[in-house]
Every structure is written in structure tokens, then in C-alpha cells.
């Protein structure tokens, strides 16, 4: 028992590792601050592109969505970070992470928005257009507000997934939370920093997961 505590919940080691862990946590939050808006906005653009009246363009959007939802994000990241240099394109770890997440997230979020837009009946945009609103105004003021409300739980749960996936950035040596904790583990010969990282993820995500569940229950009750 003492050995377990010593190896996994060693307070002294945790304290010692804290500066590294703190920097890792900040990097994770920085990645989130970059890739979540990128994904939300990119997804919206993808979904809007999907409403185009040009058939071949719509197909292109479908191919994009399917492709980047099918390719494992880890493979995508390594392809961008370690593959592209062979084509003469060398990206910093942070840029590579942003690009990989953008491609992956815009496809996922795009699919969510698309479902939301499709859930709004044709009559809504017809009513709006009949009053002289342009297509863009109709989308912005009539369709999207309703569409986003309809898929808000999916948007939130997608965002939670994105936060978890930021740990992938450790494979390109970006010192985010997981990478930092593993570094601290190898420095201290102790697993406590990893446990600490897990706890920090929980502190970030548990309230979000709880809020989502309550939100979904509230929607179901309506």
C-alpha cells in the first residue's frame, strides 16, 4: 500500500514536478484556445460550403468531411509533422498540431452543423426569403440560430473530445500536459506526475461532462 502511494500519489514528487506540469497545463490550454475556435469556425465554413447549389462543389465538401473523419488524427498529425518535410514543408510542432486539428475538427464540426442546418425545415428559409432577406441573411438570422440550438449538445461533446485529443500533440514533442508529465516521470522515476496529469484533465473535463449531461436532460425534458 505504501509502495502504491509512493509510486502513484507521491505528494512530494508532485510538488517537485509542479513547475513543469504548470507549463504543460498552460500549453494544453493554449492549444485548446487555438484549435477549438479553429474547429468551430472551420466546421461552420465547411457546413456552409455544403449548402452550395453547385453539385460538384457539394460533392467535394462531402469527400472532405468523409476523408478527414475517417483518417485517424494521430496518423494525420504525424503525416503533417514528419511527412511534409519530405516535400520541403517544415512546420513547427504547434503549427502542425493546429493544422491537423483544423482538418480533423472542421470535418467533425462541419458534419454536426450540417445535421443542424438540415433539421430546419425549408419553410423557414422560404418565409425569410419571401420578405426579401438575402441567402446569407437568412442563414445568419433564421437558419443558423435554430440549427446551432438543435445541435448544441453535439457541439459541446465534440469540443470535449477535442480537449482530450490535444494530448496527441505530445508525439510531436509539443510540451503540453501529457508530454510534460511524462518528462517529469522520467526525471523523477515516479508515476505520480502522470497521475497528476490525469487529475488535471479530470478537473478540466468533469465539470464540462456534467454540464453536458444536465443540458441534455433538460433538452429531453422539453
Amino acid at each position, binding site marked *: 500500500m505504501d509502495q502504491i502511494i509512493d509510486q502513484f500519489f507521491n505528494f512530494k514528487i508532485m510538488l517537485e514536478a509542479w513547475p513543469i506540469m504548470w507549463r504543460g497545463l498552460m500549453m494544453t490550454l493554449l492549444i485548446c484556445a487555438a484549435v477549438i475556435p479553429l474547429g468551430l469556425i472551420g466546421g461552420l465554413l465547411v457546413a456552409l460550403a455544403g449548402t452550395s447549389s453547385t453539385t460538384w462543389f457539394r460533392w467535394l465538401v462531402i469527400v472532405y468531411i468523409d476523408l478527414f473523419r475517417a483518417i485517424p488524427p494521430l496518423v494525420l498529425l504525424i503525416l503533417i509533422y514528419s511527412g511534409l518535410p519530405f516535400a520541403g514543408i517544415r512546420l513547427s510542432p504547434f503549427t502542425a498540431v493546429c493544422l491537423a486539428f483544423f482538418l480533423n475538427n472542421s470535418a467533425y464540426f462541419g458534419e454536426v452543423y450540417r445535421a443542424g442546418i438540415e433539421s430546419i425545415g425549408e419553410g423557414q428559409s*422560404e*418565409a*425569410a426569403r*419571401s420578405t426579401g432577406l*438575402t441567402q446569407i441573411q437568412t442563414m445568419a438570422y433564421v437558419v443558423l440560430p435554430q440549427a446551432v440550438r438543435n445541435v448544441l449538445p453535439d457541439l459541446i461533446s465534440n469540443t470535449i473530445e477535442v480537449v482530450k485529443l490535444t494530448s496527441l500533440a505530445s508525439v510531436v514533442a509539443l510540451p503540453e500536459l501529457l508530454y510534460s508529465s511524462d518528462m517529469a516521470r522520467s526525471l523523477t522515476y515516479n508515476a505520480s506526475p502522470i497521475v497528476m496529469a490525469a487529475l488535471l484533465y479530470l478537473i478540466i473535463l468533469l465539470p464540462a461532462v456534467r454540464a453536458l449531461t444536465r443540458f441534455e436532460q433538460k433538452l429531453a425534458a422539453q
Partner: protein
Amino acid sequence: MSVPAIIKIIDLHKSFGNLEVLKGIDVTLGESELVFILGPSGSGKSTLLRCCNRLEQAQRGQILFDGTDILKPDTEINAIRQQIGMVFQSFNLYPHLSVLGNICLALRKVKKFSKKQAREIAFHQLERVGLVDKSDNFPSELSGGQQQRVAIARALALDPKVMLFDEPTSALDPELVGDVLGVMKDLKNSGMTMLVVSHEMRFARSAADRIIFMDGGNIVEEGPPEQMFDNPQHQRTRSFLQQVGY
């Protein structure tokens, strides 16, 4: 009739794929006229109405609105649409906006009125349809009849020259139909030009200036209500009126 035409539809053809739905329609709608369109389901009534503000794109013919052919691709359709109000069978109010928000949206974004001006116009129109006290309610809190009256107010707020009604009372419980027809009657009395698709025969007889009977994408016959109801010329008109129990 020598009143100036607001809408003049000339030889209008519309197909969905291989299905020809309008097979050469001619209609003239004079100022302050209320023209009623009758006809069996699938005869093309909705399609005809929807061509008038280009919710459907006709393939051939002309629709002159105040002299402008709205079917020409270079016609500024959004400018025309503000002047052609449309009321739908299923109301199509925006559920995420209050009654006031529903009416103000186009006033603000299309007509570029200030918030204050838009509210004033909205309240004026709500007064007209008798729903001032519902301005802050959401559509889901209103009865069907109230929702349809808000939809009418929303269209009227843009000060249109003509109003299109596509079965405005078909989705309503019978006891709520009267309120909506009352609003339409007031509108007629105030001189609005109206093109109405509806099965409210009694209303047609009392309010319409002219009745058009459509079947299979053609106009079979048209005339004043007395003639159409009491002395229809065509067998198809007679059997339709019989079917609907009139």
C-alpha cells in the same frame, strides 16, 4: 376591368423535371383586386403562387410586377420580394424569435429601419391583426390562428403592394379560421391587392372579385363568384364544386 395591373402573368410554364405543373397560365391581378384560386390538390395552385415571388423558378413566360419582369435573371428579386407579401399554410414563424422579433427582422435587415422605427411599425401591424398584447410572446405560446395573424402582420409590415396567401386557414382548427378570414377581409376593405389560394368557399363568394379555377396545370375557367358558383361553364368546375360540397 380597367384598373392598372399590379401583377400580370403571361403564358407561364413550370416543370419539375419531366412533370409539367403549369402549362401556360395567364392571370392579371388589378389594383385592389382579390382573386381567388380554386382547384383540386396537385393542380398547381401553390406552384403558381410561389412563382410570383420566385420561390420557384418558372421556365417560360413572364410575370410582370409593376411592369418589371421578375423572371428575368437580372431582376433584383430581393427588392421585389419586399413588395410581395406571402402567407404560408404552415405559418412559418421563426420559433427562436418573439412575435416582435419575427416582424422586425426584415424591417431591420432589409428595409434598414432603426430599432425604434421597426418596433413602431410592428406594433402598428399587430394592432391591425389584434395581437398587440402578444408582442413579447414566442410563436410556440400562440394558437394557430394567432400565429397566422402574426405571419400576416410580418408580411404587411414591409408595406407590400400585393399579398399572396397559400391556404392560410388549412392548418387551423375550425374555430380559429374566422379570426384569420376576418383579418383578410379587413385587408381587402383597406384596398390591398390579394391573390388567395384557399378552400374557404363562403369567404370566396363574399370577398372575391374574381375566381380562377385551375386543374392539371391549366386555368379551366374564371369569372366573378356568382357565375363561378351558381353557373359554372365547365364540367370540371362543376364536379370540383360538387366534390367539395358546394
